[in-house]
């Protein structure tokens, strides 16, 4: 059965608890050296200022995976940026979507990280592909709690 058109269907939500402070999680998602550890060894370039670019490159820097824009930056709580998957031709042709990272401090030395990927209404191929956020985020948790990255996805 084909699902009916549904505004909220164009939204994906991922949430997890990480044994780290709010500031440590903020640092992990905005520090290129740490991002590389949990995001496919990518090279990330950004000053994390609103209106500035957030460029993601392949590990050797030869391919552009993402050329996005920072929409909001409120350390250590909230980071919002555009998303277009340039690593895939079909996805790159789809409209831009949006990624929001929310970090909340929790009792007991934990931080709650919520990632919302929305505005995917007209980007079905991107929507299917970014289901892989659960792998990226569990990788981030592993990196932060043990210092080691998971083996590459098969």
């Amino acid at each position, binding site marked *: 059965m084909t699902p*009916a058109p*549904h505004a909220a*269907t164009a*939204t994906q939500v991922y*949430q997890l608890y990480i044994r780290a402070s709010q500031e440590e999680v903020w640092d992990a998602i905005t520090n290129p050296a740490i991002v590389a550890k949990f995001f496919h060894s990518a090279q990330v370039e950004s000053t994390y200022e609103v209106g500035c670019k957030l460029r993601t490159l392949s590990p050797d820097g030869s391919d552009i995976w993402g050329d996005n824009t920072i929409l909001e930056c409120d350390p250590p709580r909230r980071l919002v940026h555009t998303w277009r998957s340039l690593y895939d031709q079909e996805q790159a042709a789809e409209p831009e979507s949006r990624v929001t990272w929310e970090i909340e401090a929790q009792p007991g030395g*934990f931080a709650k990280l919520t990632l919302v990927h929305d505005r995917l209404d007209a980007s079905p191929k991107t929507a299917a592909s970014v289901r892989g956020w*659960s792998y990226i*985020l*569990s990788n981030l948790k592993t990196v932060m709690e043990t210092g080691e990255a998971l083996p590459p996805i098969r």
Partner: protein
Amino acid sequence: MVLCVDDEDLVFKALADPTRRLLLDRLFERDGMSLIELEAEVPQLTRFGVMKHLRVLEEAGLVVTRKQGRHKHHYLNSVPIRLIYERWIDKYRDRRAAALLELRDQLEGRR
């Protein structure tokens, strides 16, 4: 509500119930449903029953709710399942077992 941090027991208990797995499957097909929409997906349950199951899923972190205007939307959160996969499945997966499963799928015409 009890804050559940990293509790694998809650995830396994939540997944142990067929109605809750059905609700997760429905959300996988159509994410972000409201309570009323979810009720329509499982007509065999009362509103109270749906709410009770959603609460268990939410406490396990498998469902995350977000408010948009007057509506509360329910989203499938796949991260706890990913963590269980890495902890309990990926680690023990052996190549021979994977090959046998593939053979079975081929014989049963699943691919």
